[in-house]
């Protein structure tokens, strides 16, 4: 069972990575970021169950909290960028180039 859940966590994470790299819109890329975080959380809970140690779960709680904060900020930045340039396509934001 442990291996199974770990594989699922791995799958979630890989899908998240692939999505983050591939998706054109910033918003969908952020969604894939959430997927990645969830994969990690699943792995942590799995290990917590495996060792009988609540530390893993505590850590998951923290991750969820920070993810919430991060999602809020990332989305507001995205909205601000959208308002400024009218586009949410990541490739358009190249000002930090070079």
């Amino acid at each position, binding site marked *: *069972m*442990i*291996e*199974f*859940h*770990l*594989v*699922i966590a*791995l*799958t*979630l994470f*890989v*899908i*998240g*990575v*692939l*999505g983050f*790299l*591939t*998706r*054109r*819109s910033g*918003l*969908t890329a*952020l*969604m*894939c970021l*959430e*997927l990645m975080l*969830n994969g990690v*959380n*699943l792995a942590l*809970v799995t290990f*917590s*169950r*495996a*060792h*009988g*140690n*609540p530390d*893993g*779960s*505590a850590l*998951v*709680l*923290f991750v*969820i*909290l*920070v*993810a*919430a904060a991060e*999602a*809020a*900020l990332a*989305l*507001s*930045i995205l*909205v*601000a960028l959208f308002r400024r340039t009218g586009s*949410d396509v990541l490739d358009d934001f190249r000002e930090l180039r070079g």
Partner: protein
Amino acid sequence: MESLSLYQIIVAALTVIAALNVLLAKNPVVSAMSLMATLFMTGALYFGLGAFFIGAVQVLIYAGAISVLFVFIVMLLDMRPSLVAIPGRTLKVTLMSLAGLVFAAGLGLVVCGAPLQSMTEGDPATASTSLSIAARFLSRYMLPFEVTGLLIFAAVMGAILIGRAHDPSLRQARKDAK
């Protein structure tokens, strides 16, 4: 080693399908809804693992707040599925996927080759109960707990500041100040 229950298998399959949908959907609304589904299913998976408290938190916060936030933003930005074929996009996707696959290969090999037999399975009744987690929070993880509070506070402030740049009343106030 406990064996897998049917419930876990189905939920896991649904999670993966939903995740794939997030990845592959053209319509961003569909993407957002799929995300919500994934998060919900992950919560179900937590329940299957005996982490009830975490599962509840997941459903409440992740599936109930964060993904709703995503839907709001999709609506706000009025995103439509893009139907225009962009030149050079396929090459880009291929290259990006390559990196992702390399990463997946590496990570997969490492994770699957890792020795897990040495772990003993814990007792689901006591592993991740709210009591045990709370005990941790109030002893070992007291400082991170408090700091997280500050973090959320800062995030709220930041979000407000970034978000309110075009408030008309604020613009008036800025003009008066000049």
